[in-house]
């Protein structure tokens, strides 16, 4: 047994989780590599994507290289229930879901923590770019901070993880820049040191949400594309796949100023000019606080993963919170997570109503 006890490391087969595992081995932990089998890629999408057999093989090879055990654990059923089905529901309801937030909260970290207990592991580690601080006794036992590399920071995806689980987590890459992490991979001789990062949604690797939705749920209700005054500009075959701020693929071509999706109302896709995309306010529901605020406060709010937290006034309400930004934000999108920061710290978050 390693001097620091046994830690379960979630291994996707990518570079980040491999480096995380290697650093923990170096630090004297007894590492147990676990790859979750979440989804069966279909047809031609099999290669080089999350959950493809090749990725499981990469994770296995890394563990072999490190001399630690590796297991594939099947969580396809919970992934479908907790991530894919809600994702399809959200799109059909005209929202743009945040599946990675749901996945990190449910399948990845909550379930991994249970598996860790079953495997006799005190801790769970991942390759997330985020940091944890042991907090004050009592109300906030652990504090979640942005990763040191702000360009890679993944704290956005973690606000929903229960504090009891965060308290058992280790993020070995939290203090590293992405390039430093790749350099570590080379220094440690990891077999996948030069593997490209995956960016896409793991279960829709070609990014075609509409085709995926139809494969899974059949055809959906057609509707119209109209402007804010009700003038019909075109037709569509289902609201899934449309997202606020989208310009391409609206089927309302022709001359004039570019048009963007402003909102989705029932089966109507409402479009307008780029200026109309900017809004000052949002309402968040399904809220989880890592550190519960005592009242309204000033902080920063991030409305999608690729968004720099923007200064705002946050007012907790019974069912969620209300945000008023200092400056209007582009394309505030229902279904996306709104995550509240004060400086580097994640206080909590919810989903844009």
């Amino acid at each position, binding site marked *: 047994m390693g001097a620091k006890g046994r830690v379960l490391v979630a291994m996707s087969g990518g570079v980040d989780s491999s480096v995380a595992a290697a650093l923990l081995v170096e630090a004297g932990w007894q590492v147990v590599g676990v790859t979750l*089998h979440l989804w069966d890629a279909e047809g031609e999408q099999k290669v080089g994507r999350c959950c493809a057999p090749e990725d499981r093989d990469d994770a296995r090879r890394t563990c072999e290289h490190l001399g630690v055990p590796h297991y594939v654990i099947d969580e396809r059923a919970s992934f479908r229930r907790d991530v894919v089905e809600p994702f399809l529901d959200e799109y059909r309801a005209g929202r743009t879901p945040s599946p990675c937030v749901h996945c990190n909260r449910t399948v990845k970290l909550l379930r991994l923590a249970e598996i860790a207990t*079953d495997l006799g592991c005190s801790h769970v580690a991942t390759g997330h770019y985020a940091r944890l601080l042991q907090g004050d006794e009592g109300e906030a036992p652990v504090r979640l901070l942005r990763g040191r590399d702000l360009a890679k920071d993944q704290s956005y995806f973690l606000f929903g993880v229960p504090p009891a689980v965060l308290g058992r987590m280790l993020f070995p890459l939290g203090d590293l820049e992405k390039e430093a992490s790749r350099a570590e991979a080379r220094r440690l001789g990891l077999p996948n040191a030069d593997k490209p990062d995956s960016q896409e949604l793991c279960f829709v690797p070609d990014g075609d949400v509409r085709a995926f939705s139809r494969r899974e749920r059949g055809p959906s209700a057609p509707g119209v594309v109209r402007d804010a005054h009700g003038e019909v500009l075109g037709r569509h075959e289902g609201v899934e796949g449309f997202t606020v701020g989208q310009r391409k693929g609206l089927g309302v071509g022709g001359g004039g100023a570019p048009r963007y999706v402003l909102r989705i109302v029932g089966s109507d896709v409402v479009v307008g000019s780029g200026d109309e995309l900017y809004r000052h306010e949002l309402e968040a529901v399904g809220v989880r606080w890592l550190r519960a605020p005592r009242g309204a406060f000033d902080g920063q709010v991030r409305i999608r993963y690729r968004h720099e937290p923007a200064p705002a006034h946050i007012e907790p309400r019974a069912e969620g919170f209300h945000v008023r930004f200092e400056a209007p934000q582009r394309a505030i999108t229902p279904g996306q997570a709104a995550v509240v920061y004060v400086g580097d710290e994640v206080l909590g978050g919810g989903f844009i109503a």
Partner: protein
Amino acid sequence: MIYLDHHAATPLAPLARRAMADALGAALGNPASPHAAGRAARALVERARAAVGSSLGARAADIVLTGGGTEACELMIRGMPRPSRVVTTELEHPAVREACRGWERAGVEVRWLPAACGKPPSPAQLSEALTPGALVVVQWVNHETGTILPVAAYARACGRAGARLVVDAIQAYGRLPIDVADLGVSALCVASHKVGGPVAGALWVDREVPLEPRLRGGGQERGRRAGSQDPVVAAGFAAAAEALAGRLERMAEVADWRDRLEAELLAAGAVVNGAEAERVPSVVNASVPGWRSDILVAALDLEGVCASPGAACSSGVRAPSPVVRALYPAEEDAWRADSALRLSLGPEGLDALQVDAACAAMRRVLRRRFG
């Protein structure tokens, strides 16, 4: 490490290892070559053939050596003359299942006899499915649960109906005495790596039955299986087969170890799969409520115990045990297939102290969860 996965592959028995080491050190050619090095290799292959034949009560000439168990099953099933229909069970190993599907693809109807209540199909169930000229394919001992199928009674039923019976005896070999002389079957296959030998298979075929080869090329194995034989593997197989009677004598001790592991699982609230029928002493298959197979196998591995969720699966994709599902088809028993743990054992490299240590490891792991 405590190795409790003998139904997947037994550890190499010391006698087999020595025979293989000697063979590795000898000047051996291709067993088909007419020179001294070829003859030396050929002698090892023929020694394996004789040893396997003798272990089955058969003539050496009626034994075909194969690369492994799957190949032996494929040859046994698809090498038979075209049947009027194929009758098999829902309990079969994937190697047999897929070979039967091969007949299905060739246009032959396949009947799958269901199991239920933890028991294999009865001889009466089999009789109802028989037609003259049918090919009946059954395993003698189930790979996951150790359930013994009533092969002698099946053979009588086949004899009455004018059907042909072939038997996958891979998990019976070295666990039950086998004598093909009066069994009334047309062919029977076994494997070396279930009895302390290296990976290899063998098929006994009744000399009256015309066997169509599945691999063609050189005329090895009297034209029944083309391809150069591996004399080193043959040496190991020979040693394991020659020691088979001694292995059978040690099964009483193995049964005692199995019973202790089973008692430990029962104390943790497990249900034993296949306990309703007669089983070989080399395996216990149990489902522990609240534990899924893949997680329990990983947890035991971390405590130094090699166990299995069922049949060894190389694709890396978990599936609930089809055998346990077939034995307990009721909806409320579906969890048993998801939770099935197989501990299989044998005389190779195992002793009572290790069984004690395995029991202690199971206690440590199962205590982490309560139901």
